[in-house]
Structure formats: structure tokens, C-alpha cells
């Protein structure tokens, strides 16, 4: 009786030791492997997130500031001469440019240079007609497949809403356009056909540097430096993404003025109405005996 209980005790203490030992070994091995893995971790790195763009002093940044429309005009020129060969601008029609950056005649001249599909003739043959103000800016490619085929599988994104669609907005677009280093930092391996841009998440971007000094000739004589063109085209793209921007700020200003004056009036009305009540005086005259 006594012996067997000792045996059982030894047995259970041995089992406990074995269990504790194996748990310890497993834990240590797992920790060691995790530690080894963490030394070469390539997830959540700075490169994966991309370099954060600095905050530039855009002229339309302030609460009451509107777009620089001369810059929008220059930016449209840059888009038309440089970006439009690969990037579409689907949501902008020629009429949208009127009274923003160009006059009606200028916008008409732009669209009349192009041919759009017309209704078929009496025999059902497709016809073409010159563009109208109501036509949209044409896509450089017929469809997505054509765009990918022409760009080694990479799809140039539509630029209509690109400023709204990217973290950092204008600052990101500007930094991306001007931020191509002369060569990628040492040790960076790029897939064939890719370019290095620190602002692009992951660093490897299919679009190469496109803006070079003197690429376009501005009609207002502004020197067409890389940063100037990038600034103009970014302002233009911001307008394309937020065409209501100027009106919105104007309405905001009006709303602030009207609402705050109504607020003051309401305070005055309240005080006016409450004046007799606030100024009441209670007097208690105890009944005389």
C-alpha cells in the first residue's frame, strides 16, 4: 500500500518534469525561430509603405483659398502633351474646361481637332464627326486590355479622381512626379521594366520619369522646369478631382457669415424675450394681522 503510493508519486513527478521540460523546449525553440525570422523581416517595412511626401504650400490650401487658375491652364497643357498619351481622364468633358482654364472658343478648338463616333448613316455604316464641347476627353486606349498590353501589363490609372484616390493627395502626386532618383538605392532589386520611386508603396513603379526640364513650352512664358510642370499638372488634377472646390469654399464662407449672424440675432431675440422675466422681482408681503 505504502510502496505503491511512493511509486505513483515518483511516476507523477517524472511525468510533470517531462511535460514541463517539453513545454520549455518547445517555447524556447519557437521564440528562437521567431527571433531569427524577425531579423530578416521584410513585411511592414518603410519601403513597403513608401516615403511619405512632405507638405507643400499649395496656393489652394487655405480655408478661403481658391485654385490658381493660371496653373490649372498650364497643368492642362502638361496633361495634354505628356500624361494623355497613357492616362485617361474619363470624367472630364471639354465643356468642363470652359470658364475654368479656357474660353469657349479655345475648348471648341481642342475638341474639334478630334473625331468622335457619330450615328450611322442611312446604310448603317459607322460615321465620324468632329468633337463637340459635350464630348469627354478621349481615352488613349480602347480598353483596359489594350492599356495593359501597351504598358507591359501595368494599367495606367485614370487621372480624373487620382488626387482624391491617393494618400497624401497633391503632395503625393507632386512628390511622385519629381521624386525619381537617378538610381535606386543600393541593394534594391527591381523587376524588369520597373522603375524606382521612393514615394510609390513598394518602390517599384511601372511608370518611368516623364517630366524633364523644358518638356513643354508654356504659352505664358513660365519656365517649364520639372517641378513647375509637376506643380501645374497636380493643380490641374486636383481641379479635375474637385471641380466644385472653388464654389464649395465660396458657399462655405457665405454659410459661415449667414449662420453666425443668425446666431447673434437669435441671442439678441432670446435676451429680448427673456428680459421681462429675468428682471422680475418677487416680493412677499406677509398678510397683516
Amino acid at each position, binding site marked *: 500500500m505504502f510502496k505503491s503510493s511512493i511509486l505513483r508519486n515518483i511516476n507523477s513527478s517524472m511525468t510533470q518534469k517531462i511535460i514541463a521540460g517539453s513545454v520549455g523546449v518547445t517555447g524556447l525553440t519557437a521564440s528562437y525561430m521567431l527571433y531569427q525570422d524577425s*531579423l*530578416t523581416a521584410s513585411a511592414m*517595412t*518603410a*519601403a513597403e509603405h513608401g*516615403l*511619405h*511626401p*512632405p*507638405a*507643400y*504650400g*499649395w*496656393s489652394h490650401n487655405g480655408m*478661403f*483659398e*481658391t485654385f490658381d487658375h*493660371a*496653373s490649372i*491652364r498650364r497643368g492642362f497643357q502638361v496633361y495634354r502633351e505628356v500624361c494623355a498619351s497613357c492616362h485617361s481622364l474619363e470624367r472630364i468633358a471639354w465643356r468642363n474646361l470652359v470658364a475654368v*482654364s*479656357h*474660353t*469657349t*472658343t479655345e475648348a471648341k478648338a481642342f475638341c474639334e481637332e478630334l473625331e468622335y463616333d457619330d450615328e450611322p448613316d442611312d446604310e448603317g455604316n459607322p460615321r465620324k464627326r468632329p468633337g463637340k464641347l459635350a464630348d469627354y476627353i478621349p481615352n488613349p486606349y480602347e480598353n483596359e486590355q489594350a492599356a495593359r498590353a501597351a504598358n507591359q501589363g501595368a494599367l495606367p490609372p485614370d487621372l480624373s479622381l487620382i488626387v482624391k484616390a491617393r494618400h497624401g493627395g497633391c503632395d503625393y502626386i507632386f*512628390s511622385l512626379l*519629381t*521624386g525619381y*532618383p537617378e538610381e535606386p*538605392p*543600393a*541593394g*534594391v*532589386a527591381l523587376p524588369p521594366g520597373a522603375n524606382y520611386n*521612393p514615394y510609390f508603396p513598394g*518602390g517599384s513603379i511601372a511608370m518611368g520619369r516623364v517630366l524633364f*526640364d*523644358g518638356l513643354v513650352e508654356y504659352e*505664358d*512664358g*513660365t*519656365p*517649364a*522646369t*520639372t*517641378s*513647375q510642370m509637376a*506643380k501645374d499638372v497636380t493643380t490641374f488634377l486636383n481641379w479635375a478631382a474637385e471641380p466644385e472646390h472653388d464654389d464649395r*469654399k*465660396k458657399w462655405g*464662407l*457665405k454659410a459661415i*457669415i449667414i449662420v453666425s449672424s443668425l446666431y447673434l440675432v437669435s441671442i439678441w431675440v432670446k435676451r429680448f424675450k427673456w428680459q421681462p422675466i429675468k428682471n422680475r422681482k418677487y416680493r412677499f408681503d406677509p398678510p397683516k394681522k
Partner: protein
Amino acid sequence: MSFLRDLIEAVVPAAYAEEPEEEPVEETEEAEEEPEAEAAGGDDDEEEEDDEDEDEVEDPLVALSEECKNSEACKKYVHHFDECIERVTKESEEEGYAEKHYKEDCVEEFFHLQHCVNDCVAPRLFNKLK
């Protein structure tokens, strides 16, 4: 100023001209001809680049970032970046580099340097652009 202008325009009906021949170009400063021969940083205030009629224009961004890169604040980042390039280049010349499980790159060092340069360039660049 634009606040006041907006206020006035919101109250007073604005008159618009009947489509001018050319859109009036704002702020056409007649800048003096000042071809800049060298890109070396150092002159920061005297860079008037507006309205140069020459084909060769110089990007203020290039000059500014060069200047910022050489500034005291970014010195240590340049040092780390250069050191990293040297280290990685040396490593890549070793045998069996292609089969290595982990290859170091200088992206982080580059980012730190670029951050420093950006912080220095960003507040100044748009003053030089139109």
C-alpha cells in the same frame, strides 16, 4: 486679402468680361535675365527664375535639394547612406550573394536622408515656382 475679396464678391454682383482674346496671365513679372551657370548650392535668395526666355531652364528643386543635402542637419543621413551603399556594394561582390537568403538594401537610409531633404526643401520650393 482673398477673404475680403470673397466677401465683397458674395455681396456685390461681379461683372464678367465677354471672353477675352487671351486669358489674362496673372503676375507676369518681368524678371531680369539671370542665367545660372552652376548648380552648386549656396545662393538661396537670389534665384529669380521667372520668365526666362532661354530654352535652358534650371529646376529650383535640383538646386534646393542639393543645398539641403549638404546642410548641417542632413549630414549624418548622407553619412549613413554612403556607408550603407559601400557596405551593400561590398557585400554584393562577395561570392554566393545571389543565393543569400537575406540581402540588405539601403532603402531605409535613403528614406531617412530624403525625409531630411524634403523637410528642408518643402517650405521653400513653392516660393520659387509660379
